[in-house]
């Protein structure tokens, strides 16, 4: 899509004043819901997402159980009021796809073999959307899984990179996503660097792809630190409250 907006100026400043390698402002809070086994709320730029984790519990219907390991059922849902024009509620082609890729990403970090025949349900509710909701949702899901006390190999984390105005930049905003040249969301396991999710929209040359990939991994590492801080902060706060 072409437009007259200059997404990035000659000094490398973007529309919202960020440099090419800056993340948007991120705020993560663990354990915000009382009825869920684990939960997390995340504010990532203009995104606002709530994640609730339930389980491990017995999977129903019976035929969807795996006798050797637990299944992971993530459900990504956008609220009707999360975008400017009202979104028709309910699962659509896009959210079914995102649910699937997130489920598969989480399956790789959860120690599913400890819970045969069970399911881990992850509900990702997008309250406010502004580009990069799948990354923010997956990041929040990682924190919520820790909060639920589910055995994990690693805390999954996601971040996007992309190309706007011919330059590779980190963490696309709304206009950059709509009018940019490419978007590359990835999720990694930060301890090992393994890729859990990788999608691409638009066109990148091999060089640009490698550059964007490295940048997104760097972004993931930054977000991972924030996740860990949010988790320890919650449990530290409980201790501090009493003393």
């Amino acid at each position, binding site marked *: 899509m072409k437009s007259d907006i200059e997404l990035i100026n000659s000094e490398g400043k973007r529309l919202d004043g960020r440099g090419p390698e800056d993340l948007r402002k991120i705020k993560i809070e663990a354990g915000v819901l009382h009825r869920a*086994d*684990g939960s997390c709320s995340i504010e990532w730029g203009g995104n606002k997402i709530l994640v609730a984790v339930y*389980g*491990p*519990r*017995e999977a129903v219907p019976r035929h969807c159980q795996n*006798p050797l390991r637990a299944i992971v059922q993530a459900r990504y849902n956008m609220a009707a009021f999360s975008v400017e024009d009202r979104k028709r509620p309910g699962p659509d082609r896009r959210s079914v796809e995102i649910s699937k890729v997130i489920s598969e990403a989480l399956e790789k970090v959860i*120690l599913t073999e400890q*819970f*045969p*025949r*069970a399911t881990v349900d992850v509900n990702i509710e997008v309250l406010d959307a502004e580009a990069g909701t799948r990354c923010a949702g997956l990041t929040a899901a990682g924190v919520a899984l*820790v*909060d*639920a*006390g*589910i*055995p*994990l*190999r*690693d*805390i999954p984390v996601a971040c996007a990179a992309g190309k706007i105005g011919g330059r590779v930049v980190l963490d696309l905003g709304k206009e950059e996503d709509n009018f940019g040249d490419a978007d590359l969301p990835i999720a990694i396991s*930060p*301890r090992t660097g393994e890729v859990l999710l990788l999608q691409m929209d638009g066109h990148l040359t091999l060089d640009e792809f490698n550059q964007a990939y490295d940048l997104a991994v760097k972004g993931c590492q930054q977000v991972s630190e924030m996740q*860990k801080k949010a*988790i*320890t902060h919650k*449990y*530290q706060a*409980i*201790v501090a*409250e*009493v*003393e």
Partner: protein
Amino acid sequence: MSTDGRQIVIPSQELGDTKTHKSGRGTFVERGKIYSERIGFLNIQGDMIHVVPITGRYDPTPGDFVIGIVEEASTSNWMVDINAPYPALLHVNEVPWEIDFGDTEKYLNKGDTILAKVLQVDESKKLQITLNDRNLFKIKGGHIIDVEASKVPRIIGKKGSMIALIKKYTRCRIFVGQNGRIWIDGDPEGIENALQAINKIQTEALSFGLTNRIEELLKKDAKDVR
């Protein structure tokens, strides 16, 4: 990240090397290194590294005393909810009564509460419980409350010190199931006080000197002590 000697660890945090230590509960090994698999307290006993969970579901182990709610009565067994990821099976041979074929509903029916023991957990996590042990019975009267299974050790206290304290001051009959269900029976005031104490333990479970603070709280409310 330490809180007066008790260190909180988070998943994927490196805890040690397999050359010097052994991987215990709540940990896993990858390429010769031991990592935590959950959020919890680090507990090193000799060369074993354990992580004691702070949150999470009840993980049944044989020998645990649990409080279960009957979900279904079949002709030769009951399915019982014991707060674990899976329902538990109670076979007619595992109850102290003589039961004719198909008469299971006469003894235990949907909604009944029992105090049971976990008999076995097999590799596919099929659970079996039993009523054939001393002090196991069908519960009548009283209150059942749910707490987090990870807080149960704090509610019981060292060698049962905390629970003995609550029993002493509230004059209630209390039984704490390993699965996070607590049964309390006594006069209404005593139950009220016991609930208050248990709630305080739950919210302050991670702190030190809790037993003393609970004793103060109970002393204030108790009129007469045995």
